[in-house]
């Protein structure tokens, strides 16, 4: 089979798989309808091929040269989230998944904006204007988003404080038990006998 024919059949097949389930229930020779997996996608999710929106800005000045190198442009695209439904950034998606039509469209918009003389931040802002903050791979560090970044560390700090408090209490209780044990004759609740304590010591030494 020639490559062109192969690609044509691929596209036609994808289309028929997308539509076939509902349109051809009576044709028993066709693949089974009612499938529960994502329709027609080789991915494990429902790919939204129509998710791309145009992000267009007029060129800043006519004939302006690109201010970003290819590497800088790729780095910028790594900050943009492909909207096809995958969790990849635009750069990774467009360079690895030929079936996605969204990341190439977003890439074309990025190129146009770079050619139009826009800076990386201006391009990111333009995408956020069009798609919302969902266009970014990570939340911006402002407003409520700070909670996303800080809460884990705050929780860890709180956990550390709580742990130190608990450890101190446990330490104080152990000290109290140790100081009262000889006077009252009552040992530690479960390690009371000399025999048991010596067994514990031996076990600790053995496993130390």
């Amino acid at each position, binding site marked *: 089979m020639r490559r062109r024919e192969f690609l044509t059949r691929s596209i*036609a097949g994808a289309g028929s798989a997308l539509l076939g389930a509902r349109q051809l229930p009576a044709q028993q020779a066709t693949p089974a309808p009612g499938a529960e997996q994502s329709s027609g*996608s080789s991915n494990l999710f429902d790919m939204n091929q129509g998710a791309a929106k145009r992000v267009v800005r007029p060129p800043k000045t006519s004939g302006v040269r690109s201010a970003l190198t290819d590497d800088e442009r790729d780095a910028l695209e790594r900050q943009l989230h492909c909207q096809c439904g995958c969790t990849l950034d635009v750069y990774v998606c467009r360079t690895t998944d030929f*079936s996605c039509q969204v990341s190439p469209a977003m890439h074309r918009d990025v190129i146009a904006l770079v050619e139009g003389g826009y800076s990386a931040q201006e391009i990111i802002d333009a995408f956020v204007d069009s798609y919302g903050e969902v266009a970014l791979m990570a939340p911006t560090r402002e407003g409520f988003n700070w909670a996303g970044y800080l809460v884990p560390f705050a929780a860890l700090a709180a956990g550390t404080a709580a742990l130190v408090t608990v450890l101190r209490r446990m330490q104080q209780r152990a000290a109290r038990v140790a100081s009262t044990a000889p006077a009252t004759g009552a040992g530690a609740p479960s390690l009371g006998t000399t025999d048991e304590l010596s067994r514990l010591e031996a076990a600790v030494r053995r496993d130390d």
Partner: protein
Amino acid sequence: VILIGELALWVALLMAAWTGVTSCAGGALGREDLVTSGRRGLYATTAMVVLASLGLWTALLTHDFSLKYVASNTSANMPKVYVFAAFWGGQAGSLLFWTLILALFSAGAIWSARTKARELAPWACGTLAMILVFFIAVVCFKANPYDRLSFVPADGRGMNPQLQNPGMAIHPPNLYLGYVATSIPFAFAIAALVTRRLDAEWLSIVRRWSLLSWFFLTIGITLGMWWAYVELGWSGYWAWDPVENASLLPWLTGTAFLHSIMIQEKRGMLRKWNVTLVVTTFLLAIFGTFITRSGIIESVHSFAQSPVGTWFATFFLLATGVTIYFVSTRLKDLEAKAGLESMVSREAAFLYNNLVFVGIAFSVLWGTLFPILSEWVRGSKITVGPPFFNTVNVPLGLLLLALTGIGPLIAWRKASTSNLRRQFAVPAGAGLTVGVVLLALGMRDSYALVAYTLAGFVAATIAQEFQKGISARRSIHGEALPVATVRLIARNRRRYGGYIVHAGIVVLFAAFAGLAFKRDHDVQMRAGDTKELVDPLGHRWRFVSQGISTSETLNRYVTAVGLEVWRDGVRQGIISSEKRQYLDSNKNPLFEPSTEVGIRSSAKMDLYIVLAGVREDTAELRISFNPLVIWVWIGGMIMAVGGLIVMWPQAERRRAPSGYVATLEPARRELAATT
């Protein structure tokens, strides 16, 4: 067989409900006849679930396309191995598979505990039966693999091509084994809380099953990373996808538990904390399943959105409520039996380690759920991707790596200054040497530098521990080095198996840090074109395109590009990358084209070639140099081997009880003798 299987599913539901009621009633009333009936009911439930599973496997292997599940997930021309694996390839089948493992594990756990933990067994059996009731009910009412189509199609639609991979055939079963095994410690925790018997039997059973869960989760996660790397074609193995996170959460809390249970065994401390970790691990496994199957969070792996999400949410809330009730009403029974003697002790170090494990679990959970929270608070959607998770979790991961080395060096109960100096001098020196050498060699990535410094430190602590033990054996017994090494591990499998797990962690972190030096290149090549690239280690690579070819095999059309590869002037062979179009038996295309990556692995670096697409006569390729990736798989394997050594049953039999468990041993024997 298929009809019997379908019927068996409904019988299993009734049997599980009977088991739940009679076991709990038997436990509460002290009626041995009810307890026995409940136990036998569990075995019968298991037999019914096995029958139901055999029925589905029969339907799959005989291509019975009258079943919607079979028609949706297989086709007549699929390789048999993937037809077999299709059992867990879709929503309904995977839930039946989960139920099958749960039933088998439950029967095994209750059978082995029937004499050793007589008081716990009825309640544990009842709890496991309730969990079984939930899963069987979900399978029967919401995701029934025996649902039929109104007609019989000539062929099925086949399996998603990305699932037609050996890694995917064995990765989900391992994860399911890990998830399901968390049910057993949970059931015994509930039983112990109900009966107020959180003692040696409980510790022994819970530890064994937690280890099993940890072992399978470790293998499942590692295989999942491998599958993502070789199959998805994005040149990475961990994307912080919600489903990946869902598998990591119970692994983190389970690992924390396996550390903290040692303190309870030796000192009788942390009883509340350990119970909390056991039930949290189970609840996180259920919560992860809810995330995976409800579709509430965007993920590349999620099963289609379905009504099972509501069921899982309800079950999760119910299980959480029951757990909170029992823990809160048993707090006095969970008081520690001993105090902490020093803030600088192994007990304290294990607690710091637990804090970091739980902290990472929280941050992963937080990041996974933050898009929902943000949308709820602000009304706008956001994406929380790898940049966020790396920002938050990389520092925590490095802290954990440091504690991996620090913990084992500190003495139990109280560490003296001289002890600390003696234990830390060599490892700290080794770690610093690694850091300085790498700095001198030009490494400037701060996280990678810290990671390798800490890896050097932890590796030295492990080597030091082995060296001490081996030297002692050689001087006492006069053994040769290999014999002393083997016997050292064999005689104290828990300790040295644990060190081997730590060695796996070191290897993993070193491999993770290698990605800081990853390089990607986009190239377009026609037949005969040559491209020269330089890898992160300075090697010069030359790629010569052999052109684009197409072919047809069993169930797919293949478009491939071959590159002749040279490194520093030495020919490395030909590497090809493919786009595959899968077909049904009528040669109609199924799904969109998928990618087969060309990978050449070495100890230092992977060459990773992806055919992104073909335009006219030009292949669009992404060529990546991924340093140290092979060590991720090796690290995972080392961890699994260490885990296997730790949980090997013979070690339990040989090893005399020690620590806090030893103090309970005479009472346990006395109890066993009287019952």
